[in-house]
């Protein structure tokens, strides 16, 4: 069984937010419910400052605090490393949202970010969904938190589990340029114009993600929390100094 992980090269990332848009389209998320987002931050002191950016999906941690705190086991970790939410079990207590150190969880019936609100333009018409968009993901599966979100629960990035989980067994990397794996590659990875994102099996020593982590000294965000993210970041120029290097 693979242990899926992502590598994001901050030297290549242009902060264009194409990943954010692709994620929203793929997963029918509402504006503001950005399962994938790009953070901007300033380094240095005026006048010698630089703006940098940092793409942030769910980290699908090895030891996720959201899974630990969920009282009903609605948030769970799959054998292949993804952290998912069973919308049938979520009671909407939102403890996971407070427990996540990365701020990548969303409550589905929040205030609309834009006006007019898309929920009003495409109302759910009495269904249990938050809205009724013209395009709907054909892979709806509430046990995995995939599809248009129901009301009163928490949602988050699934690593596009509806694609990734159908990948051929034993494959080391999922790549847009490989015709055999293209369809199984997460939307944010496929759409990334500068090819700053890589997706593959962290347990496979021959995977490109593993080699990149080793060769380019991949780092993880907020290591001190002990969550052990499965999303690694590369890039000498983009790397945040507070990151800690993995021991291996």
């Amino acid at each position, binding site marked *: 069984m693979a242990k899926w992980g992502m590598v994001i090269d901050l030297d290549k990332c242009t902060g264009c937010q194409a990943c954010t848009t692709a994620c929203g389209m793929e997963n029918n998320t509402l504006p503001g419910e950005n399962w994938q987002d790009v953070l901007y931050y300033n380094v240095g002191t005026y006048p010698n400052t630089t703006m940098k950016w940092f793409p942030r999906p769910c980290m699908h941690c090895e030891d996720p*605090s959201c899974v630990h705190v969920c009282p009903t086991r609605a948030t769970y970790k799959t054998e292949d490393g993804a952290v998912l939410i069973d919308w049938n079990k979520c*009671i909407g207590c939102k*403890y996971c949202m407070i427990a996540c150190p990365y701020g990548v969880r969303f409550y589905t019936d929040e205030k609309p970010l834009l006006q007019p609100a898309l929920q009003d333009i495409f109302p759910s018409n009495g269904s249990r969904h938050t809205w009724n968009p013209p395009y709907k993901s054909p892979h709806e599966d509430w046990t995995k938190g995939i599809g248009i979100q129901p009301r009163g629960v928490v949602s988050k990035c699934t690593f596009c589990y509806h694609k990734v989980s159908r990948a051929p067994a034993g494959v080391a990397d999922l790549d847009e340029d490989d015709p055999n794996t293209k369809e199984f590659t997460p939307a944010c990875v496929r759409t990334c114009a500068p090819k700053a994102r890589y997706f593959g099996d962290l347990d496979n020593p021959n995977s490109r993600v593993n080699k990149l982590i080793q060769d380019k000294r991949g780092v993880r965000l907020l290591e001190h929390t002990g969550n052990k993210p499965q999303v690694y970041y590369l890039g000498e120029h983009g790397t945040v100094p507070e990151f800690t290097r993995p021991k291996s």
Partner: protein
Amino acid sequence: MKNRIRFREIEANRGFWALLALMGTLIGLAALAFFYLKIYGHVATGMNNQIVWGLPHVFAILMIVAASGALNVASIGSVFGRKVYKPLAPLSGLLAVTLLIGGLAVLVLDLGRPDRLIIAMTHYNFKSIFAWNIILYNGFLVIVALYLWTLMERRMNRYSKPVGLAAFLWRLILTTGTGSIFGFLVARDAYDAAILAPMFILMSFSIGLAVYLLTLMAAASGNNRPIGHHIMNRLKNLLGIFIAGVLYFVVVFHVTNLYSEQNAVASRFILAGGTEHTTIFWLVYVVIGSLLPLAILFAPQTAGNPRAIGLASVLTVIGGAGLLYVIIIGGQALPLQLFPGMEVSSSFADGQVNAYTPSLPEILLGVGGVALFVAMTAVAMAVLRFLPESLADDKLDPHYSAESTQEEAAAKA
């Protein structure tokens, strides 16, 4: 001859029915607020994706914490063998149950999917402190119900000590669990502190005792059962000690935080951030909720005055609510420190101090929980005998007359 204490129901007089009518109205408004929130979702609240626990949580945790502390009086009587408190123990047990039910009602109705409560009862994640709390709350209700039985049924009186001890230990664990909901959260700099668990225990002692005193005084004045000065003095001294204890823990919590750069951010934000949380902390909690009641309870001019003790109790509850507001909402208002020391922005409000203004439905839901507690307590006291017929010192404490006579003689000598 043994001085047997008689218990009697409170009178269902005009004041009683007026109280029930008021509480019924508030409960009705809370029910409307609940359905309104269920129809429109959290859009109708002040909560957002950053402040996910709002005012209803403050009300709920205030009542849950108070429930544990309301049992103080019973515990002192049963566990620590102070006989003078034993006649006051049934009311203590009753308040523990009604406060907890009121708090849990608010907590459950504020869930995204309260209709799935059965899932919370049947799918336990034993790694989750939240799931542990579900067991602790339900267990507390059962143990206190048993405890009340041993207190109120003469044949069961002999079991009141072991059951009282079990209830005492259970409530310590319960409040530890409630404090640990926040204490275990490594992700948030404002939480992530083991001291929150004992701090919540002390908070339960002070808020619970204040609620107990207020209920006792209200029931006594509404039924012409004057409370003896001796017992009131004991209770008010105890309240003062608990208020000072909470203040001590809060000081230690922030001083400890200020030693480490990571957690200092959180304490600086609360203590000197300039937001409403700073005002609430200093004005509502420190001044109104701690220093003022301490002054009222121990100043020679006001010490022992029942009205002053009542005022101090009200201020203690207000201060406790203020402290919980700052802990729960202030802790979420502080943005996540993804890149410490740097200015961060995103489309998800990263790097910003998160704003929260409670909406009317949230306020009504929380107030409804309090009204539910008051109504249940009043009805229970009118139906069952929770309060002694007389609350005079010589009735509650058979040794009081002799003691006071000796003290007076010694003073004269």
